[in-house]
């Protein structure tokens, strides 16, 4: 056991953060320029080049930057399935017909779930209908065409696991950034002659969500290196979704009316956190899978 963050990992976080900084807190209609920059820096292939934890670090940085771009699929999910040479913009789709998919309007390829099988489809073989949404993540309704690459029986579970880890890592980055932003604000904001961040009622709520966000971050990192472990992956997503819901509520609450303005900036993190809570069936689906995994482990333990 050695949980030191290595210098390489620090460097990856810092350098991807530098690239993302120029795009931060923006919804990006055409992510081509950002993707090209990330590709040039080797960040899209960080999984193969450095490893799955480093891919989780990159997704944390993406969440922290509140950059709305189709990155999770290419940075973590596709390589976890052993897929190479996919285009830069890969979106994830929970079923083949009419499902909502984040970043679908700008995707060049889709990874989709079809029963117990995962499939790959190029965007020009699929139909994508843009959907209006206010949650900081471009949405499209996708129907996957007939021309797909099938990844074999059981591959859907691996896709779902990697997807869960990716959403947990990205959400953890967003939560920690939202909490940091809010902590700065409540320290500066003075009411009753004192900083509102000095009130325990405010401190305890922010401390609580910080603890949850740290938990989500470490659980996502742990699950990232065990892509075959559906229990850990579901745990990371279940915990991240619960933490995201609480982080949204607390950071918005203690920021008051200012917090809901675009100018203040908090909503750039918190609106996508709402979107994260519904991904892949949301906490209900994740928690059910955690429970099933726990009972299955118990059954194996009893047999042995």
């Amino acid at each position, binding site marked *: *056991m050695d949980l030191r963050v290595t210098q390489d990992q620090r460097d990856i976080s810092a350098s991807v953060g530098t690239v993302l900084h120029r795009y931060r807190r923006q919804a990006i209609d055409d992510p081509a320029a950002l993707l090209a920059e990330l590709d040039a820096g080797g960040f899209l292939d960080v999984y193969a080049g450095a490893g799955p934890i480093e891919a989780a670090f990159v997704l944390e940085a993406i969440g922290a930057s509140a950059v709305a771009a189709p990155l999770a699929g290419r940075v973590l999910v596709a390589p976890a399935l052993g897929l190479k040479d996919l285009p830069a913009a890969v979106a994830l789709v929970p079923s083949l017909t009419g499902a909502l998919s984040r970043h679908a309007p700008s995707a060049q390829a889709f990874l989709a779930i079809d029963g117990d099988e995962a499939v790959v489809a190029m965007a020009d073989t699929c139909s994508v209908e843009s959907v209006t949404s206010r949650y900081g993540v471009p949405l499209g309704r996708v129907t996957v065409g007939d021309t797909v690459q099938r990844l074999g029986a059981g591959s859907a579970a691996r896709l779902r696991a990697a997807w869960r880890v990716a959403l947990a890592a990205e959400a953890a980055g967003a939560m920690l950034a939202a909490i940091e932003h809010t902590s700065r604000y409540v320290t500066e904001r003075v009411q009753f002659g004192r900083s509102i961040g000095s009130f325990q009622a405010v401190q305890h709520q922010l401390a609580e969500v910080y603890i949850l966000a740290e938990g989500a971050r470490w659980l996502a990192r742990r699950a990232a290196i065990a892509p075959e472990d559906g229990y850990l992956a579901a745990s990371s997503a279940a915990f991240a979704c619960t933490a995201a819901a609480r982080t949204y509520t607390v950071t918005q609450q203690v920021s008051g009316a200012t917090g809901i303005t675009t100018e203040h900036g908090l909503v750039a993190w918190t609106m996508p956190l709402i979107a994260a809570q519904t991904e892949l069936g949301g906490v209900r689906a994740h928690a059910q899978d955690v429970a*099933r995994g726990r009972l299955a482990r*118990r059954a194996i333990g009893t047999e042995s």
Partner: protein
Amino acid sequence: MDFEWSEAESRFRAELREFLAQNVSPLWGTKGRQVPTPELYEACREFCIKAGEHGYLTPHWPVEHGGRDASLWEKIIIAEEMWGAGEPRGPQYMNVNWIGPAIMRAGTSEQQAFHLPRLARGDTFWCQGFSEPNSGTDLASLATSAVPDGDDYVVNGQKVWTSYAHVAQFCFLLVRTDPSAGRDGITILLVPMGLPGIEVREIATPFQPHVIHEIFFTDVRVPQACRLGEENRGWQLVRSVLAEERIGIARYTFSEDVLDQTLDAMAQRGVDPATDPVLMHQLGQACAQWEASKLLMYAAVQEQLDDIGGARPMASVWRAIGAGFNERMARELFMSVMGDEGLVEESPADLYTLLGVTSPITSGTLELQLNLVARTALSLPKAV
């Protein structure tokens, strides 16, 4: 970054697990930790002596004090396995985690020669004389007085909420030696519990016998040779050793063990949780939180190993989730799983009715940990 245990660490865990399987008394179960009966006291004592003989009590202590300088990770493996077995060390975890280290840090050579071998052997029980009726979370306001008189201190006052006082041979006692100096007027005494003038009374609770006690000190003459460290410098020492204690209590393994017991109990009654989606949701949420909690403890361990100086926010993060959030969630889950059967005395769910309340209170309340997280991790201004 490597989340896997090394081969040596895994081997150590397997050996320890085997030792526990062979040596934890069948009496222990889930209820033994507070040593509520003479039989459980004896079971605890016998276990600790065997654990000491096999080197499982103090491997992380320095060689010169009977340890073998084992890594902090080994200490965590011990904590996980012991808690997974219902913490058969009883109060000994305090001895090895912070009372011994405090004596190493500040004790005289005579104190070290007397106490450390006994602690390492596992045959002495200690209690901690910290809280008082008017000094709980604000511990530095404590008033139990110790007045020098010849070679002794004369101690008068009352301690309260004390676990293990009914079986302890020694008390790690905080006393006031300077009434006007706040936290700079606190001294530590290592007090034999058999001294005249010490009276232990159990405080009744609806849970089980001997959960908490009060200790009265009436003109107790404690030799000055029992003072640990300098007079009036006790606060700094106790703060630093208790910071280390925050990361040694792996309650999540205990929760997982109790979960298995609740599921076993219900399986015997023909209840399958998989048929109840609400229960499955609750179970999934709890398991996810335990996984997160485990990793946050590991992160706190790494923070201590990195030793970059300054505050250690992860220690408080861990303590808040490990002792606060987890125990509450476990209490609710176990009662949900067991339903009415959880009301039966000494059922696994019954046990957590107590732990779900006490764990976020003991060793620094959850609120105190949240204050520390707010200040050290989020740099929020000190509350006024």
